């Protein structure tokens, strides 16, 4: 699945649809899969597709790290999104989002044990079987760890990749979040992840509050996070790097400048 050159991109959101269309240097975009209907794509995405800009459906509700097998209806939706957008791949998260009849409303970390790995491996295989394009999974930002964790997230993802061939979406902001919150060195994670299976990279800003990093996707990307991106680029030439910005949108010029900072950080790697 690696080999698809994506370039530098930004998360497409309805609030910044025209901004994304006219920003220079947007090589690809991502759309939250649950926010679109494959049969009624937003006009802005159709415009981008007509220009040949790849659009990747990014799922947030599958919960492939959950105890239940992935919902066939959700998988069918992701598949239909990929078809409608002509997407080269679909991405989701190594996370659970619901359990015991409750919705988390958030991407929560999976207990990283051998027994959980077996469940998640089976879930990933089911997802792959239902999708017409390759799947890539993203590492998540965590505030807490499970007491029974036997592996780091990088090791867990490495095992998943080896067992299923799933691709990697490495979120360097999430690696930085886990470094601050859980004391897991981001560079150590980069060394442990099978970066040869990298599909693309996420970058986003956040803020620190009381010694805890909150990955809000609403702020300027910090130099520390860009340094993790440079470290990644020193190890592998990423097929794509995408900026996530989800609310409190800045000016078009500020977003353009952020993409420029990302390119500079990539060049330093």
């Amino acid at each position, binding site marked *: 699945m690696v080999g698809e050159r994506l370039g530098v991109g930004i998360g497409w959101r309805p609030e910044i649809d025209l901004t994304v269309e006219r920003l220079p240097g947007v090589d690809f975009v991502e759309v939250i899969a649950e926010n679109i209907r*494959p049969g009624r794509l937003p006009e802005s995405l159709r415009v981008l597709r007509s220009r040949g800009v790849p659009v990747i459906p990014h799922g947030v509700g599958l919960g492939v790290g959950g105890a239940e097998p992935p919902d066939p209806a959700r998988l069918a939706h992701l598949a239909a999104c990929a078809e409608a957008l002509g997407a080269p791949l679909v991405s989701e998260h190594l996370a659970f989002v619901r359990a015991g009849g409750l919705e988390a409303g958030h*991407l929560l970390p999976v207990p990283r044990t051998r027994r959980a790995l077996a469940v998640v491996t089976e879930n990933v295989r089911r997802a792959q079987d239902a999708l017409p394009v390759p799947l890539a999974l993203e590492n998540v930002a965590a505030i807490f760890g499970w007491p029974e964790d036997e592996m780091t997230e990088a090791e867990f993802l490495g095992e998943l990749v080896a067992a299923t061939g799933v691709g990697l979406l490495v979120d360097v902001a999430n690696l930085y979040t886990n470094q601050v919150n859980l004391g897991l060195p981001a560079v150590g994670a980069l060394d442990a992840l099978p970066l040869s299976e990298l599909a693309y990279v996420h970058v986003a800003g956040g803020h620190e509050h009381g010694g805890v990093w909150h990955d809000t996707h609403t702020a300027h990307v910090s130099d520390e996070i860009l340094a993790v991106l440079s470290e990644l680029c020193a190890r592998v030439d990423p097929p794509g790097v995408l900026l996530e910005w989800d609310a409190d949108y800045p000016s078009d010029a500020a977003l353009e400048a952020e993409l420029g900072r990302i390119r500079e950080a990539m060049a330093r790697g």
Partner: protein
Amino acid sequence: MAEAVPPEEPAGTRPDVRGGPGPGGRPGREEPAGAQGVREEPAGQAGREELARAQAGLLAALVAGAQAPPGFDGERLRIQTASLVAKRRSVVARLRPDLVQTLGEDFRAEFAAYASGRPRPPGGSRADAADFAGHLVRTGRIPAGAGSGDRAGSGTGSGPGNDGPEAGSGPGSGSGTGPPRPAGRWARLTRWLGGERDPWEDDAR
């Protein structure tokens, strides 16, 4: 929402491309030994049940006020809980700016009091906003009758109704500071975002 039907599935768009080279669901390269042909559950039902118990116990502690499972860092779980409530609050604020205006600086504390130990109801953020308004009426914070101003339910609002696991990625209220958007496209988009029920209502995107 497990029972949800996908929004629309274009006919004939699910070609069976597996088993051949190219963009199949599985990568078209060699799988590790042992991975091929293993269709039975290596995890086993017991493994799924164990994981289900663990995740349900933790989630109940995070969103429903249950006692934290043993071994977790309680302070970290408290921070996670607060973070989840903050996320809910930001979406409800976008859906119900009238409540933000009425409550002013009390909005945050009132929402925290409402959401403490109370998971988001089925029906997603719109249901959450409606329940919050009902809570405010019951506690006398707003007059009865003022609790039904859900913009998103009106068919012309721009509220998300479902923001998601990832930070605030749901379509919001157009709070961007960039140049104004042409009404036509924005209106078309918000028409279906706001006026039609989203099948993935329970996702807190």
